[in-house]
């Protein structure tokens, strides 16, 4: 069954979109990432104009993170205070990112910047996470605890910076400065790459601030919900590229998939959770690396600029 998308201006198979968004929604619920970094490239692969894909995925990510936020809120696995700090830092980063985005577009190198950032970012983050997960697994094999016990008073230096704040839900007493800085970086990357940034935020909060994964996922989803709600409205107002029909289809599949993903997350142990997320991120990085390093089958490409009405 095909349906014509009014903004993307092409027909698409309803079942395929539902299946695709269901699968991505499952992953999104499982890992607490928005899923935008998977969905956007997939939609572009299906011939949806890139601007429409980025803008519409923002709406879909907002909706599916709403489901997650409510679930984690009920389970009290969401730190609203930490979320508030992340959101305010994220806004600053988004503004900086949009400025950088427009500068690069003027210079005509936006596509290269995006591909290069995908490759480096995903390879580094995925690689680090995989290394860490493997090391923990080996330690378990050797009969030792998965990671060294944290002793009281043994905190990384950045947690002791000024403006310390207590985050009860996360069991964290830490300076606001590094958290806000992380949020600025994520907002920046999110605006440039058109992703929510959950895939950086989740490992960031786990590794740098040692916040329990259960709380990290809920809080990350909250930050994504706020950013993507704003992004959808901004995209709709500035470039009219949000396709409401496509967004509805993506959401129907996505929210259902996210429910099952969230349920599966409870039955998954922490180590395999890290390993799977690492492999997923690494494979997306590889996919972009192939595009960059392998000689293209057709060096030429045609760009039809977005219809100017």
């Amino acid at each position, binding site marked *: 069954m*095909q*349906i*014509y998308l*009014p*903004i993307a*201006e*092409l*027909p698409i198979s309803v079942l395929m979109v539902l299946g695709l968004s269901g699968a991505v929604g499952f992953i999104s619920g499982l890992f607490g990432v928005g899923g935008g970094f998977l969905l956007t490239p997939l939609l572009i692969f299906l*011939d949806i104009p890139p601007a429409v894909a980025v803008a519409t995925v923002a*709406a*879909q990510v*907002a*909706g*599916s*993170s*709403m*489901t997650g936020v*409510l*679930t984690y809120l*009920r*389970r009290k696995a969401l730190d609203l205070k930490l979320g508030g700090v992340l959101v305010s830092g994220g806004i600053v980063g988004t503004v900086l990112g949009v400025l950088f985005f427009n500068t690069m577009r003027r210079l005509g190198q936006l*596509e*290269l910047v995006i591909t290069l950032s995908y490759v480096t970012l995903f390879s580094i983050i995925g690689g680090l996470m995989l290394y860490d997960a493997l090391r923990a697994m080996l330690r378990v094999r050797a009969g030792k605890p998965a990671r060294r016990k944290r002793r009281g008073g043994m905190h990384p230096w950045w947690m002791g910076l000024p403006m310390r704040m207590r985050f009860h839900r996360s069991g964290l007493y830490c300076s606001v400065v590094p958290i806000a800085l992380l949020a600025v970086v994520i907002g920046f990357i999110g605006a440039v790459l058109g992703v929510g940034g959950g895939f950086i935020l989740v490992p960031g909060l786990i590794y740098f601030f040692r916040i329990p994964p259960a709380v990290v996922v809920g809080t990350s989803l909250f930050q994504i919900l706020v950013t993507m*709600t704003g992004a*959808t*409205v*901004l*995209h*709709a*107002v500035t470039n*009219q590229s*949000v396709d*409401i*029909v496509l*967004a*509805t289809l993506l*959401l*129907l599949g996505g*929210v*259902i998939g*996210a*429910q099952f993903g969230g349920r599966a997350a409870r039955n998954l142990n922490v180590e395999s959770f890290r390993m799977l997320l690492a492999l997923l991120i690494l494979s997306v990085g590889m996919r972009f690396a192939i*595009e*960059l*390093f*392998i*000689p*293209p089958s*057709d*060096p*030429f*490409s*045609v*760009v*039809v*600029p977005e*219809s100017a*009405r």
Partner: protein
Amino acid sequence: MRRFLALLAFLPIALAAATARAETLIAAMSSHRVQITSNYTGSQLTVFGLVERDGRTVARGDPYDIIITVRGPRRMLLVRQKERVGPIWINRTQRRFPDSPVFLHVASSRPISAMMSEEAAQRDRIGLANAERTAGNWIDLDPGSARFRDSLVRIMQSKDLYGYDERGVTFLSNALFSAPVDIPATAPTGSYTVDILLYAGGVPLARQQTSFEVIKTGIEQRLASGAYDWSLLYGLMTVLMALFLGWGASVVFRRD
């Protein structure tokens, strides 16, 4: 205005037809409007035409040849070429093809190469590669230009937006012909022109122009214009719908 100018251009031919008793062409479309609805997956139109002659028309030894060129809305097209820089492949060079049709289909009653010489085809702008010869970058200024132009035609052909059917025009009788025009679902909305040319023995005898438009109707049209005219409201509605669906799912699936 454009149409009026086009008509003016054909005036001499029409006048010539009146005096020298050459053939006249009569053409009609099966429809002048392709409507995009929510289950639209492309469309097919048919061009019908008649070569009209009367008792005083000169007898011709050569058969009639028909060439139909359909041009869609014009945009600036960009062709980019990837080149190797160090270990990576990036888009290095690009050519602009301003004011080029996003849709271009040519159909003829027999292969154009059999109808006329390559020079004549270039002169009369016949065939996919020649149809836009007046537009910038479509002429071979240098060998590089030709490469970009050929790539443009090849890639657009693979998307079904450009095409050449060398036997797309069928003569139903000596004088009556028809040709199907396939509009893929990805063809842009806007107005399309259809040029019909009559040749015999490599000589142009008559031409006729008609047109059709591709438009969104019903809910598709309302959503698209809403996105432009009330963009803030549209954005807020989309977000509310998204949040509502998200909330709905958490209610439906709630177990704990």
